């Protein structure tokens, strides 16, 4: 294999169905965009009013040439200066009216458009927060980001601008044609015939353009993902001096995007060519025909003047059709991308008729629990292959096993970050799937090994699971986690940390994450290797303090070290997704070879080992 760092397919989201061939059984653009209806509905009346205003403005603009016609045929040919003033007055009035109508259109559609965008953005965010962790494992957040920012922006502009103009300009062209007809039916027919190539080309344009548009938006999302990784992985890139290497990959993706964008530009240039060429040729032919007709006395000079003035007014609507169409197809792609996420079915949902744990005792029972990722290859064993474990109220149990034996997965199942694929987990005798997620997660609090802090004060971060707690509870939790260092921060517990605040060391973050779990005062505490980043002294202090909490709280602790195991009443040994032994630390140490292998420290390395079993 040639080493292509970060190779593989470039079309994310990786698990998603392959992007469909646009020509194959693809719903029409109108139907695809119509799915916006639920969000657009509140804005529709004003959008319609806006369209009416715009249309009025367009009609007013078309009336100006009519005034010119009567002036040219009347006052000007008669040499009557008195006819000029009323005509100019009328033109002025119509001109003011047109401007007023444009202002009105803007006023109508301005606010609703932004509201639709805001509502969609919030719903998208809420949906993403609701979707299970397995969804987020699959979708790079760059792809989500490009949807929530660029795609929704595009949809808003189309709703408050594109669709209105598309409709209004089309109607304007039709009305203009009628006026042309009334000026001279011969010339109007000429106009109509000449416009045929435009319609044909416009139709073909859709097919050509939308495929490219889709590719461009996906590639932009990929690029965003690479940007994100380069920023989040900055330490690794720096440590290995791979900035240039990352740049190469980034450049390659940017080049691909450029190629697509150029293809898009060529498609747009194509439609531009027609949109400019056709009216110009039409004008020339009309000039020829118009003069002939005038000579034959079929049309008046005034009508000829009005004809060209009208056709000039129509020019912009005709030319605008090009970019309005491409905008519409871009929007269609954006809508598709939006619904790709919104249509995602949430597999971890609240029950229809939720039960409730009236008086939580904290008994956690695993009954023949199985778990496998839905995309795991058939024939592969379940990651968790029948876990049976009964944790009594107040008991602390340590999960011990090799890397990859399934310890972290067990912890993730307890709060339904993932759902079991077989068997069940009971909290105080109730299947956790019968509880609402809200309730379940208020009974069980977790501390993750990679401690995530949010952009908020230390206080808000620690009291995340228990926002109503008072300062005493905060102090207590910080004390247990040995996180007293926060009082020395510039603003104490009100110091902002996380993305937008002070950055803390791994050990400090881990202690805050532990404090957070403790402060939630749950009936079950789930700690995933909570002390890994602490030095020996601090670890000993935390353990000592933690014992008080654990005395009365049910706890599941993933442990790698004997010192952490010592916190537990019992130890469950995990091997290949099964609990192979349960007992106290000393029992297992005395009677279980694998346990000794997993937990024996380096001190014992000199001893011959019978098992060097691979994981």
């Amino acid at each position: 294999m040639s080493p292509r760092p970060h190779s593989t397919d470039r079309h994310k989201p990786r698990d998603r169905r392959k992007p469909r061939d646009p020509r194959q059984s693809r719903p029409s653009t109108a139907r695809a965009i119509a799915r916006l209806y639920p969000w657009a509905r509140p804005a529709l009346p004003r959008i319609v009013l806006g369209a009416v205003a715009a249309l009025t403005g367009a009609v007013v603009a078309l009336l100006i040439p009519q005034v010119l016609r009567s002036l040219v045929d009347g006052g000007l040919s008669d040499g009557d200066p008195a006819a000029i003033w009323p005509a100019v007055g009328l033109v002025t009035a119509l001109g003011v009216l047109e401007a007023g109508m444009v202002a009105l259109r803007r006023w109508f559609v301005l606010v609703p458009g932004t509201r639709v965008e805001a509502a969609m953005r919030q719903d998208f965010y809420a949906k993403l927060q609701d979707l299970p962790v397995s969804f987020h494992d699959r979708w790079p957040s760059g792809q989500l980001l490009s949807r929530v920012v660029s795609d929704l922006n595009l949809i808003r502009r189309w709703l408050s601008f594109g669709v209105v103009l598309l409709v209004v300009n089309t109607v304007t062209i039709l009305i203009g044609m009628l006026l042309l007809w009334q000026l001279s039916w011969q010339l109007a027919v000429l106009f109509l015939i000449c416009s045929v190539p435009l319609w044909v080309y416009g139709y073909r344009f859709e097919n050509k353009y939308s495929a490219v548009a889709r590719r461009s938006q996906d590639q932009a999302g990929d690029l965003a993902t690479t940007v994100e990784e380069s920023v989040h992985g900055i330490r690794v890139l720096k440590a290995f001096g791979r900035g240039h290497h990352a740049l190469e990959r980034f450049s390659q993706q940017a080049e691909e995007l450029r190629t697509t964008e150029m293809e898009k530009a060529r498609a747009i240039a194509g439609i531009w060519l027609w949109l400019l060429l056709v009216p110009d040729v039409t004008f020339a032919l009309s000039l020829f025909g118009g003069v002939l007709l005038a000579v034959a006395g079929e049309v008046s000079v005034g009508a000829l003047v009005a004809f060209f003035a009208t056709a000039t007014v129509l020019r912009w609507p005709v030319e605008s059709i090009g970019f309005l169409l491409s905008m519409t197809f871009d929007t269609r792609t954006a809508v598709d991308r939006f619904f790709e996420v919104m249509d995602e079915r949430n597999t971890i949902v609240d029950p229809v008729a939720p039960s409730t744990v009236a008086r939580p005792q904290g008994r956690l029972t695993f009954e023949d629990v199985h778990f496998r990722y839905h995309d795991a290859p058939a024939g592969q064993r379940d990651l968790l292959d029948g876990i049976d474990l009964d944790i009594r109220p107040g008991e602390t149990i340590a999960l011990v096993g090799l890397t990859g034996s399934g310890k972290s997965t067990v912890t993730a199942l307890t709060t339904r970050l993932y759902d079991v694929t077989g068997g069940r987990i009971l909290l105080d005798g109730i299947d956790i799937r019968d509880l609402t997620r809200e309730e379940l997660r208020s009974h069980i609090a977790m501390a993750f090994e990679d401690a995530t802090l949010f952009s908020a004060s230390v206080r808000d971060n620690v009291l995340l699971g228990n926002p109503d707690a008072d300062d005493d509870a905060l102090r207590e939790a910080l004390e247990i986690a040995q996180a007293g260092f926060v009082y020395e921060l510039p603003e104490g517990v009100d110091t902002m940390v996380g993305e937008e605040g002070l950055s803390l060391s791994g050990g400090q973050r881990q202690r805050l994450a532990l404090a957070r779990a403790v402060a939630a005062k749950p009936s079950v505490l789930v700690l995933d290797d909570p002390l890994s980043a602490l030095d020996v002294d601090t670890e000993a202090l935390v353990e000592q303090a933690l014992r008080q909490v654990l005395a009365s709280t049910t706890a599941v602790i993933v442990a790698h070290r004997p010192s952490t195991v010592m916190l537990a009443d019992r130890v469950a040994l995990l091997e290949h997704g099964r609990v192979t032994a349960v007992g106290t630390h000393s029992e297992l140490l005395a009677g279980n070879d694998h346990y000794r292998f997993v937990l024996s420290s380096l001190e014992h390395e000199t001893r011959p080992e019978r098992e060097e079993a691979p994981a």
Partner: protein
Amino acid sequence: MSVIGVEGEDREHLSKEERRHLRRRSFALLRSLLHPVRGTVALTAAVVVISSAAQVAGPALIAYGIDAGLPALLRNDWLPLGLAVGAYIATGVLGAVLIAWYTVLTARVSQAILIDLRRRIFLHTQKLSLEFHENYTSGRIIARQTSDLDAIKELLNSGLNQLVQGGLYMLFVGVAMFIVDWVSGLVLLASIVPLAVLTRWFQLKSERLFRRTRVASARLIVQFVETMTGIRAVKAFRKERRNDDEFAEQVEEYRSANAKVIGAFGTYEPGLILIGNLALAAVLLIGGFRVVDGSLAIGVLLAALLYTRNFYAPAEDMAMFYNSYQSASAALEKISGVLEELPGVPDPADPEPLGHPAGHLEFDSVTFAYTPARVVLPQFSLDIPAGQTIALVGTTGAGKSTLAKLISRFYDPSEGAVRLDGVDLRRLKPDDLRRAIVMVTQEAYLFSGSVADNIALGKPGASMEEITDAAKAVGAHDFIVALPDGYDTDVNKRGGRVSSGQRQLLSFARAFLADPAVLILDEATASLDIPSERLVQRGLQTLLADRTAIIIAHRLSTVAIADRVLVMEHGRIVEDGAPDDLIAGDGRFARLHSAWRDSLV
């Protein structure tokens, strides 16, 4: 307040001086972006000039057709009409073809500029110090490279098009108007005054508003990215609803900022139309009287009217340009700010070559402080001979990681020098430095791509065999082959599924493959289980045999393979010696070591 670099980018109100500085900075950036493509830009300009001129001929030809062609035809002379129609078609075809060409040319220019800018920001942010990244936050850096670039793309794609095409068109129409009928030309010229006033008003108003939308959108992006990357904690602690509220607030702030911008535009656009229509009425008024008294042909009046209408038609596009220009210039301002930031650890101007590094490290009277008031490492000197394995021990916050970051040149010392084989690190080419010194930290970040790709990051171009050898050496091979696609398994697909211990093994393999003269391990084994750690330790013994190593670990098991132990406290090295000697003594290390031994049982 200063506006150098990214300072003050969140402020809505800026002094005149500051605004001027920002504008100058943005323009300098723009100029440097245009420079490489100036050839294409010149060609594009030529094309657009000719095409606009061609387009402008239309109304004059119509006038000629009516005023000269019509009477001539009555005399059975087809020539003038034929000329008018032929010229019309010729100019029309020429104009259309040139505009299509122009569209492709501008796309080429704008894409070239965009890719240049993208690469510049990307490379520059990679160069900026960790300190900058930590303060500026990843969300904002991402916003600079995504939504801000979108704004510039918008400007280049359509906005600039509209400006150049529209502006030239207006110019040519104006000129044509003077040629056809100078009196009407004066009317048109007079109407430019209110146009300029209106445009200036819009410019001033929207500049501030646009800055506000950029700030609002950056906040929104930060919140969004933070939620998505921390989704597990969000769910586990039921932060969803509170997040919804916070996000709703940010969305509303962005919405209202955006609405204000569109609102300002909503005054500007109708204003333009009004001015245009009034000009039209004025041309009609003055021209009408002149037609009546016979000093003006009807065809010419028609041409003047068409020109007036045409003159204002692109004005709307120009306003659209202003729209995208404002939003892009706000974005450019921020981007140029990031680019203005100097890397905290600059590359040397004339680097010293580094042949085969032996790995001799030397701290010569080094002090490190974030600010003069916050001294992290008071002055110290330290000599680490090539090939020595050092265990760096001490409580959290004692300064161990800072020391490590000085060696890997994530930071430069405030005073004194750190040398590798006698060469100041600041005099080394970044590539040489990174080849010689590699640091593995606790957070083992995986990039999207396969497992093999992630290991190969240590040595681009490594063969599959080298990759598997590295994985075997650190004991990662077994779990990798157990993955669904072995070394080709996509880590993103398995995103949360490679456990943190496994991630650390992968980052070890990465370091192993990099094969540096100096290896720094900062808590790199914290998440490993004991058997894995044991395997790694065993691998380390061979790995470290002929290189310098600095190992920071809370678990003192490392000491077994160290030649020398340094104990740090409050930024100072308080003990220094061979492990056995220190354990035998009664210092801090002896105490730490016995505490650690106790923790093992």
